[in-house]
């Protein structure tokens, strides 16, 4: 078995727009890239039984999630000719209107970046042990369910 460093994807709290632009900037030296595809998850202030969601509190089984993400990353790199892929998922409290997920794929031509980005988002939501607790304005909560 080869030694392999597993990449972290978790960040504490919301993902700042500045973090996203810095991440984009770093790719300007990679002049073999022709297209970037980005997906951002944003916390919705859903109304449920008359109460508004004010934040989502994320927890994860981190070790397992990172191992799963590593498998997804390898599969997606094997399937698509990507230049790079970056994934960031919030843990802890993310308020309505803030960004909780940032998936970023790049390739020479647009199609692989676009397809890979969507696939990573779908697989991440289905396969990573992460849970969102929707916290209402009055302090009560319910557990989020992915569609």
């Amino acid at each position, binding site marked *: 078995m080869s030694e392999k460093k597993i990449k972290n994807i978790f960040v504490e709290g919301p993902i700042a727009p500045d973090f996203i632009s810095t991440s984009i900037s770093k790719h300007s030296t990679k002049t073999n890239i022709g297209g970037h595809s980005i997906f951002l998850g944003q916390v919705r202030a859903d109304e449920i039984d008359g109460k508004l969601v004010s934040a989502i509190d994320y*927890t994860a089984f981190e070790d397992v999630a990172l191992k799963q993400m590593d498998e997804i990353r390898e599969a997606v790199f094997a399937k698509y000719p990507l230049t790079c892929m970056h994934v960031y998922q919030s843990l802890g409290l993310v308020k309505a209107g803030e960004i909780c997920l940032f998936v970023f794929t790049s390739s020479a031509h647009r199609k692989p970046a676009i397809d890979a980005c969507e696939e990573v988002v779908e697989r991440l939501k*289905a396969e*990573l042990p992460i849970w969102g*607790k929707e916290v209402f304005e009055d302090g009560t909560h319910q557990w*989020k369910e992915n569609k």
Partner: protein
Amino acid sequence: MEIELISFGRISEFIPNQKIQINGIETTSGLQNYLEKTFPQLAGMKYKLALNKNLVQQESEIRNGDSIAIMPPFSGG
């Protein structure tokens, strides 16, 4: 033997993390029966197990000192 239970999401609200003594249970499906009897709320729910940080995809043997995670449907992203 002693195993460690770790729980997540809504399951963590009625199964706190704990060490439990189990006897005569040797597999993940045996443990599942035990858990659903001990924690009746679990019986009606969808959940997955992880054994020593590996998702349980098929019947697996449980040994003394193992850690078992009980995980409701994922809702990340």
